[in-house]
């Protein structure tokens, strides 16, 4: 095998595979969202069988459709929140490093502040401030996950600011904006992209957790957190499939995102992988 495909091609193939699978889950969930709400009381509490692979719940709803719809919701919220978080991280991290002085101290203080409140508690608080629901959980996850990436961006920009080629470009009379655009940004991009992709797993897991606790999506929506929180009352009667399959699928989706991030890092930043 080694002779035919090299490491980069393998990474690219894996990356595409993860991407296709995630797109398929998102699309399937969006298509099945109507079926997820259909109740059929003649098919209550069925364990997994051929006609409904993940079984049915106490209202006869098909758990496979519910799970896929929930995953699709999770992925879309994950994309949205991770993108917003990463944008905040880029703005504050780069701003902190470029402006220096007071701005730097204030932003560092805010980062310490946000990191000081346990994540779940902070997402809960922000979600309350936005009145729970979709807006609450999205704002909560987006506004609490930017801190570590902001630190990475800040460190990277600080290092780039003092790099010989940036100093040389300054001496050669290039404007600050040109230096930023042509020398600093391209260097920052790979790290930033990888950081962005690695934000997804956290965003998805925290969205599910906060929804599970009752501070997120409304109970009518088939989100994974809602499904699992409902399953709690049926576990002691032995209806294991209500919790096992939805949770395991969520783990699968998170693993796919982790795989995506890892392969992206392999492609964009090969040196760090071979160290």
């Amino acid at each position, binding site marked *: 095998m080694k002779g035919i495909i090299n490491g980069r091609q393998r990474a690219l193939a894996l990356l595409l595979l993860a991407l296709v699978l995630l797109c398929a889950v998102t699309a399937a969930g969006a298509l099945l969202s109507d079926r997820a709400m259909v109740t059929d009381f003649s098919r209550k509490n069925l364990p997994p069988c051929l006609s409904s692979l993940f079984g049915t719940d106490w209202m006869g709803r098909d758990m496979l459709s519910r799970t896929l719809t929930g995953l699709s919701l999770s992925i879309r919220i994950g994309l949205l929140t991770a993108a917003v978080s990463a944008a905040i991280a880029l703005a504050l991290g780069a701003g902190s490093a470029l402006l220096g002085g007071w701005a730097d101290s204030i932003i560092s*203080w805010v980062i*310490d*502040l946000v*990191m*000081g*409140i*346990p*994540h*779940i*508690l902070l997402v*809960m*608080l*922000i979600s*309350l*401030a*936005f*009145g*729970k629901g979709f807006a609450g959980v999205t704002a909560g996850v987006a506004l609490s996950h930017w801190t570590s990436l902001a630190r990475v961006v800040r460190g990277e920009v600080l290092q780039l600011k003092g790099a010989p080629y940036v100093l040389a470009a300054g001496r050669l009379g290039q404007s600050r904006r040109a230096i930023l655009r042509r020398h600093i940004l391209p260097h920052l991009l790979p790290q930033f992209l990888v950081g962005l992709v690695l934000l997804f*797993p956290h965003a998805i*897991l925290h969205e*599910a*957790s906060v929804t*599970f*606790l*009752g*501070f997120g999506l409304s109970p009518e929506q088939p989100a994974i957190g809602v499904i*699992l929180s409902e*399953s*709690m009352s049926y*576990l*002691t009667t*032995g209806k*294991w499939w209500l*919790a*096992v399959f939805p*949770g395991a699928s*969520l*783990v699968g989706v*998170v*693993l796919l995102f*982790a795989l995506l991030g890892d392969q992206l890092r392999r492609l964009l930043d090969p040196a760090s992988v071979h160290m």
Partner: protein
Amino acid sequence: MKHRLLFTGKKLIRMLLLLLGVSLAAFLLMSASPLDPLQTNVGQAALGTMSQEQIDRLEDYWGVNDPPLQRYLGWLGDFVRGDMGTSLLYRQPVTQVIGQRLQNSLWLMAFAWLFSGLLGLALGLLAGANRGGLGDRIIRGYCLLVSSTPTFWLALVLLMVFAVWLKVLPAGLAVPVGVDAASVTLADRVRHAILPALTLSITGVPNIALHTREKLIDILESDYVLFARARGERPAAILLRHGLRNVALPAITLQFAAISEIFGGSVLVEQVFSYPGLGQTAVNAGLGSDLPLLLGITVVSAAIVFCGNLIADLLYGVVDPRIRRGAARA
């Protein structure tokens, strides 16, 4: 000595400022909430049947009409004197509620913190020493899997396996149901804490294990390890004398910094196992719009997190003389 005190003092002042910021931020977030505490706790139907006078009294009780700034300053003034107000849900002083719940949680978190730290360190050393081998692959796979698993789902699965199928451990709460408070034995308490503590420990491992592995690989490639090998030291001796010593310090720091994660995990785990700890209380306070209680819990948990960071900073200086000298120069 003098600069050590100065260093500690500076850190303490920074910590107090951060705590002040945390309390203000939490307060602002909660008072910005559009959720009406009366609607959540009394219910629409009950409100409809009440007279305006009763509603006014209730609004007074939940503090709906006071301006936020005045409420915050009032809270802050009391807080400095050690009074965190009265919980609206439990109708007890917040300090008392938090004190009780924290006791339950503290055992859980302390055990999970220590156990996950030690296990993570051991697994990290094992993986780093056998880099690329079978053990390394298994440990890395395990870490990836666990860090991709939602804590509350892991708790659910463990609950199903041990409490529903095998019936070896109780499914929830901190004490047996229907037993006198006086006749609850220590063994009962321990049995009820096993599953929550186990869940928390499992989720705490990957972070420290992966970090230790990376560090150990760096160290094993260093010149002094090459020299030790050239002197003919056995691999086990190299691992203990050069590896463990250099890895232990960053591992300890990381573990102190992970307190925030453990606390977040405990919120979820306590919710699943109905364990009456601080995390579960925080959820109740949030769902019931109990502002004083949630504010108190946020400040207390942030204080615990900041103390962890402070201890990590101080430990670094105590253990590593290079950092001590660096701080003296600065």
